């Protein structure tokens, strides 16, 4: 068999990997934005939350853009039918991602509590809405939506809000929130990390119940069989593994094993995407009414030449991307801590002076202190 014989399926899997990477990474930065108002006691806490994801959220989001571009290139028909069909849902996600993206940069440009509060809300909503919509959309993928022949979806936004999809949306909201809480307890220290660990219990329980219900419901409510479909064992197994990982992650969080907890919630996200992808196979856009109306991998894929080019480019450049993104996480690996002088409610402009505490940090073991006062001289933000 020649090496490039079955690139269709390869690219179906690669796009699944891009989505898995996206939701694993942006999952925790969504989560941090969503839980920040719950675990923050003051302005310093909020800044710690934002700074925990500040250097990486933008790079995380590029996984989505790449998934979109790869879908366009490798499966033009899938790209066209999906986004034409899920029109308003995608529009909503775009709007909220747009306002979220600017909120990180705009929030700290004006020293005024009301201004900051406004952008805190924008940051929260910009994470909350996409976190729900992605869950709704992915549940719709596995459950199938009513399609006209050729893969045309025309039931609009209400057609996506099947009860099962709403449960799926809440499940992803809870899962990302848990993922974010665990990330915060891993990346911060002191009271903030402690509050994140405590909140992980109820959020983890909710995620367990919601994700469990989604998996069970999808397993029971069948859609018309597609020829060549995988047996139910693989997707169901991955779904159960995701649910189990949520439980394991929550108990790790409770035990204060932050690294293991983050690994477990991350695994839960990856397994959930794996369950969705293996369940869809060999369709890319499954129909709930007539199986024949769905789009299959073979029908939606680009021609061989395009896929060869894409494969070569991805094989050469993806390792570099992983390398320098991984390096970023390495550079910013330390826990963030509250500086000792930051116990007051809010730093005032111009009062901080050279606030970088440096060696004066009490929790000295490799942790990093953020300056709290106004000290823009050394920074570019």
């Amino acid at each position, binding site marked *: 068999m020649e090496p490039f014989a079955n690139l269709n399926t390869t690219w179906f899997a690669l796009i699944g990997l891009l989505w898995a990477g996206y939701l694993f990474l942006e999952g925790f930065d969504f989560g941090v934005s969503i839980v920040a108002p719950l675990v923050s006691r003051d302005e310093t806490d909020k800044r710690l939350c934002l700074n925990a994801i500040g250097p990486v959220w*933008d790079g995380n989001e590029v996984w989505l853009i790449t998934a979109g571009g790869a879908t*366009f290139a490798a499966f033009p028909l899938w*790209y066209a039918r999906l986004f034409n069909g899920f029109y308003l849902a995608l529009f909503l996600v775009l709007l909220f991602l*747009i306002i*979220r993206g600017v909120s990180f940069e705009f*929030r700290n*440009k004006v020293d005024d509590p009301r201004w900051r509060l406004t952008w805190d809300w924008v940051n929260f909503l910009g994470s909350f809405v996409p976190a729900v919509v992605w869950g709704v959309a992915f549940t719709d993928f596995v459950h199938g939506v009513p399609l006209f022949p050729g893969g045309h979806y025309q039931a609009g936004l209400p057609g996506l809000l099947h009860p099962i999809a709403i449960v799926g949306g809440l499940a992803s909201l809870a899962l990302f929130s848990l993922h974010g809480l665990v990330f915060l307890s891993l990346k911060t220290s002191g009271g903030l990390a402690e509050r994140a660990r405590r909140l992980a219990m109820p959020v983890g329980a909710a995620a367990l119940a919601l994700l469990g219900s989604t998996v069970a419901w999808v397993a029971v409510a069948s859609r018309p069989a597609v020829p060549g479909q995988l047996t139910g064992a693989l997707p169901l197994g991955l779904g159960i593994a995701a649910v189990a990982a949520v439980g394991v992650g929550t108990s790790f969080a409770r035990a204060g094993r932050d690294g293991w907890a983050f690994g477990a919630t991350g695994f839960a996200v990856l397994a959930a995407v794996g369950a969705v992808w293996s369940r869809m196979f060999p369709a890319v856009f499954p129909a709930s009414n007539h199986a024949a109306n769905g789009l299959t991998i073979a029908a939606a894929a680009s021609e061989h030449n395009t896929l060869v080019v894409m494969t070569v480019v991805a094989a050469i450049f993806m390792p570099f991307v992983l390398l320098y993104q991984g390096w970023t996480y390495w550079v*910013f690996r330390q826990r963030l801590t509250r500086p000792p002088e930051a116990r007051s409610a809010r730093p005032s402009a111009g009062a901080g002076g050279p606030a970088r505490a440096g060696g004066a940090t009490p929790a000295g073991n490799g942790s990093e202190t953020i300056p709290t006062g106004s000290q823009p001289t050394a920074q570019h*933000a």
Partner: protein
Amino acid sequence: MQLALARWEFAVVTVFHFFFVPVTIGLAFLVALMQTLAYRRGDAEWDRLSRFFGRMFLINIAVGVVTGITLEFQFGLNWSAYSIFVGNIFGAPLAIEALLAFFMESTFIGLWIFGRDRLSPRLHLATIWMVSLGTVLSALFILAANSWMQHPVGYKVVGGKAVLTNFWAILGNPVLWGAFSHTVLAAFATAGALMLGISAWRAHRGAANSGERSAFLRGARFSAAFTCATTVLVAVAGDIQARLMDTYQPMKMAAAEALYHTERGASFSLITIGNLKQKPVFQIRVPHLLSLIANLSWNGTVQGIDNLQAADVAKYGKGSYIPLIPLTYWSFRVMVGAGIAMILLSGWGIWAARRRGGGGLSGTGGKWFTRAAMWGMALPFIANTFGWIFTEVGRQPWVVWGLMLTRKGVSLLSVADVALTLAGFVVVYTALGVIDAWLMVRAARRPLDGIGAGGEVAEGGPIGAEAEVPGLIY
């Protein structure tokens, strides 16, 4: 109706996005250049300038990045028939752009913002160059996609879809290399004009503060030379593009001049009052110029709209293959005019800077230049916007030249859906634009880092009333 709304939506989201793109590409390069000068010479003034403009760069890129996400999905949302037809070819550069350029930009920008105190100065400098490289690569791949729409190469049409036959042909498309040089140089010139306007204004205003004045005078001299050089090169690249356009898109060339009848030794009209098709009321014409632009010869033949239309009907069947003539005609002139004004303005800046050791730039002597440079900040944005309007409107009625008509590319949608998303984008983008402009003005008013009100250099102290709480600090 859906078609008109979808076209308006694409125009709105693209034009808005492209206010920020050239500033991002240009400022990334300029900031990297200034930081390099600071690093190599240990020069505190360049360091302050690079931080000052770096801050503006970050405000700008925030909006640039998020409005770019829209475009990645705009094709599937409103142009799904187009997406299916071109996906095999058009999708690849888009995906490669994300993989090569967007990852690089967004990852290294995080490192640059947060890594100043955590990376060695050398490594920190490397991160901003990686950002700059990312922005330029991004331009290359997205223009590869757009150039294929202007002049399709390396494909064959199979079963109603354009299928890739030669990827190297797409990257070797002559139209791509013309457009790439023109666009990236124009982006450099945009950032240069922005820096010139702000520097001249601050040098003029900060006359009382010797530290600021000296730094911004230096910035003004540097950016005047940079803007002048890059804008001249933009014109050179544009001139090369004109010949490519005459070869591959003769209808666009004819539309640029509203030339209805084929002519030898055709003249070029600088300005027209009255009807472009019949006898105009008033016109200034430069003899033989159009022939020179189109094929570098005094008496060369330039095809007229009527002849080209007749040939197209014979080739593609009944229909009109003529773009909107007044819009193409005028957008071409606005673009060129704004470009020429930029060359004159930055040339004036170079001249003023040489006079009395920069005295012509600031103080009472620089009053008129400062005013001109501040208004001149609008010029690159006008030129960029009308340049793209010319390029895209001049391609009509085709979405892919000679292969697919724009009206065949639209999605299956209700009028209400498209109207809703159009309204949503207009509202959100307007708000973003207003906030961004306000923040940019605030950033432009900020004191230079490390220079107090009296002009003395302060070491890391707090810096005045405009100080802001640092946000993205690790």
